[in-house]
């Protein structure tokens, strides 16, 4: 009763209406605001990168609108229901991945799309969320920190979809899926000794992976190691991207004034390399500001994770937040020449990205965890 009174009291403040609406919708205000800010910054850069094409920006806004809708819908699902459904979601995603292997559509030399007649989508996107769900579901029932048996089970849960996606071949998404699974066991408290063993194992797998890779994937790695060897092909991306960022300086050349982007020297400037456009036009300051908002989103996610009420929610929230960081880091690292060119878009900023819906649905899960914490803990 006292609780209810205090709520009434808060409703009378100017921000109270918004706060109440957010609570009703199981949304987290600061997180939602940060996401909208990042997406807005993204539209701004996209306008410039697309050569002032308003149509593309509108399309992107529509896509963001749909993604927000997905976030709101997912936020309504209580975490305990998600936990019940986790194995079934994982199994479905796995079956769909097999489906892609057998009857998937081929686009740009890779088999990633599944066409069910009324809808066409990439099952690897569903797997991005299903795997952390499944891993969290399994570890929730185990004694933590996980023993060797649990680690083996999680390793299998991670490896099967990773290999399936890697074979499509979609190396970028495969790495992200593997990373999300690895993060779950990492924060579940796997011992540092085990981590060391896994790192060594992973490194020794590298030659095997190398032989399994397609030629273009190998070229990317080789080009990353030495971009000058292939300035006409894949190295061209990295060289032009570095020129774009470097010539932006501290303050940038100004919105719509980046010569590298506007004169089309920079390839993939609306999609995977959009971060370089930001660097060219808004300089170091612009890039640090955007990175800061990303860090805020991740920090907020980690806080939600720390406050979550059970192991399942904690692991899930932590994995979603940290996977988001992997996204940002891989893209920014690639564009600035720290990492090889793998097709990972800059989250919420790169144009297109069927991944935007998945990303925002992930944040929907975070918000559901956050808003269900107090109600159930009493």
């Amino acid at each position: 009763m006292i609780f209810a009174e205090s709520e009434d009291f808060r409703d009378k403040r100017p921000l109270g209406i918004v706060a109440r609406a957010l609570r009703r919708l199981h949304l987290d205000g600061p997180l939602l605001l940060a996401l909208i800010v990042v997406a807005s910054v993204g539209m701004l850069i996209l306008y410039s990168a697309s050569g002032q094409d308003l149509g593309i920006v509108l399309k992107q806004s529509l896509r963001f609108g749909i993604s927000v809708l997905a976030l709101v819908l997912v936020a309504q699902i209580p975490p305990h229901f998600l936990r019940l459904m986790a194995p079934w979601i994982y199994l479905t995603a796995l079956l769909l991945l097999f489906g892609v292997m057998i009857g998937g559509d081929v686009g740009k030399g890779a088999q990633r799309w599944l066409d069910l007649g009324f809808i066409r989508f990439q099952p690897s996107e569903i797997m991005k969320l299903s795997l952390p769900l499944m891993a969290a579901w399994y570890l929730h029932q185990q004694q933590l920190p996980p023993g060797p048996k649990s680690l083996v089970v999680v390793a299998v849960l991670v490896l099967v979809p990773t290999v399936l996606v890697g074979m499509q071949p979609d190396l970028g998404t495969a790495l992200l899926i593997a990373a999300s699974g690895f993060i779950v066991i990492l924060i579940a408290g796997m011992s540092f000794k085990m981590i060391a063993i896994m790192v060594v194992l992973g490194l020794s797998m590298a030659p095997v992976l190398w032989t399994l890779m397609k030629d273009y994937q190998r070229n990317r790695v080789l080009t990353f190691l030495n971009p000058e060897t292939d300035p006409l092909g894949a190295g061209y991306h990295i060289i032009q991207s570095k020129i774009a960022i470097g010539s932006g300086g501290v303050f940038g050349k100004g919105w719509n004034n980046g010569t590298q982007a506007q004169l089309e020297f920079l390839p993939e400037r609306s999609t995977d390399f959009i971060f370089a456009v930001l660097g060219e036009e808004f300089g170091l300051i612009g890039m640090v500001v955007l990175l800061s908002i990303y860090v805020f989103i991740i920090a907020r996610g980690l806080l939600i994770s720390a406050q979550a009420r059970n192991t399942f929610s904690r692991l899930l929230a932590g994995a979603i937040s940290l996977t988001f960081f992997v996204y940002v880091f891989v893209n920014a690292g690639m564009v600035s020449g720290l990492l090889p060119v793998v097709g990972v878009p800059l989250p919420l900023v790169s144009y297109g990205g069927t991944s935007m819906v998945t990303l925002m649905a992930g944040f929907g899960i975070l918000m559901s965890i956050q808003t269900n914490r107090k109600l159930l803990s009493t």
Partner: protein
Amino acid sequence: MSLRTILLKDHWREQQVFTGRLLLAGIITFVLTLFLVARLFFLQVVNYDYFQELSHGNRVRIEAVPPTRGLIFDRNGVLLAENLPAYQLELIPEQVGDPEETVRALVAQGLLKNDDFAAIMQQIAKRRHFDPVAVRYRLSDEEVARFAVQRPHFPGVDIRARLARHYPVGPLAVHAVGYVGAIDQSDLRRIDGKSYSGTTHIGKIGVERAFEDRLHGKVGHQQVVVNAQGRSLQTIEGIHPSPGNDVFLTLDTRLQKAAELALDGHRGAAVAIDPRDGGILALASAPAYDPNLFGEGFTRRQFNELSSDSDEPLFNRALGGHYSPGSTIKPILALAALHYSIRNQYDELLCPGYYTLPGDDHRYRDWKKEGHGEVNLISAIEQSCDVYFYDLAIELGIDRIHQFMSLFGFGNATGIDILGEKPGLMPSRDWKRRSFSERAEQVWFPGETVISGIGQGFMLATPLQLAHATSILAARGKRFQPRLISAIRDPMTSELVMNPPVELEPVPVTNPEYWKTIIDGMVDVVHGEHGTAIGAGLGLDYRMAGKTGTVQIFSIGQEDEYDAEEVQERLRHHAMFIAFAPLEQPELAVAVIIENAGSGAAAAAPAARAIFDAWFAGRDEAVIATSNTSQSQ
């Protein structure tokens, strides 16, 4: 109680570990972000001036530098394909505002032809937008001057001096050497676009096509400073292209010339092989054409003219022409009869001028209406008696014929090292069953065996196969795979890699008497009293073994007279001749086919003789030249 405590304790510990891990993850995230920022600082602050310079004002473009294509030489070092400087018009799509408009303006200037508009636009669409596209090859000096005046109106269009393929000997040996042409859609599908950026031409046929990967070389690149219009101002640095390898052929230009001269004015083919190693010394197909036309980018109309010519100059008859081999296979059938012991050289047969199968009154005519009288195996070859071989074929049976002829390479591609070879056809009972759908047609008839005895009917062979079989006869069963490439040289290191002869399983006829017998017959063809080609042997100071063939391509009724004058030119017999010499140590095996020229003796044998004359007249010089080249290696 105690159990509960443990669970609670674990729960607490779990939370503790988890929070610790989250904290650690947060720290790692923060450190990695700082690392990113440091990288950005390095790019945007520390190296700002460097990148600023690259991006601002003068701009750097990375340009592909095409490699120099390898040269092609004959066996004596005579140059068959080289590269000469030529001016070409290039367009960089990303630097011209509207490529379509620009191309139209160039057409209006008379620098491009309207006919080629669609093809040029297609080229532009296929290439990467920052790569230059050659829209016109080999501008004349006058056109270069005309464009120079108009240049300010065409940003992104420039003239560049490049090396263009040139064939100094023109049409000579074109069917072996082949040619290069502008890269088209189908070429783009089979090459790696990246290694061809900057390259405009590619081998289309012949050695140019088959050894494309060796001849092409490795693309280089350079960083070029360009101004706002994309005009090159200065080259900074780059990696040099590595030139393609030089290719040495087994061809002998002088022999090739003689072969082409002998075929001049006819449709036909001549192939000469060295029976000692399978090296092809001459490969001629007539009529020929000038491969330089393709490099010059001639118009669609010119190309249509060439490709619709009823004499089919573009068709390589030597490799792809399917002909009935006719009587030229008689020596091989005679060898089969000796090998299977169904004949010896003394068995005689009376030739009445026709042959009938038992229980059938159909008459298989001999070419000599009145008959050859008493003939044995040797004189049957000498006089090319059809009746003797009708009878021999029936006794051998089609399956043994098929088996034995296959040993000489009939019915299978010889595996020569350039493309475009047809396999010919060596029929058998089994083949007929597989190839026909109607049950009535699947049966092998005895009459079909009869005409196989004189190389007619279903059997088909290419001139190359005939020359190959002749070289096997010359080497008395030793077989070498025919080849055109004798060596490949890396121009950077001058290292010469020889292409060794490939010896195949020999023909399993081991009795030297059998070989001697049929070769005696072939010698009599040229030197004997009744030889069908005695004209070809007149005045020879060495001995030659040969066999004529006259292939009927127009059926004549049983009792009709054949009158060459009355039959349209295209329906006249094909003339053929195979031969090798010198008899004791054969150096040269030749097959000549001249379409619609009448009898083998009258048309093909003199052509073959001309080839032999060229070989032996220049033999001493050739020997000296070859030994010189080998010394210089």
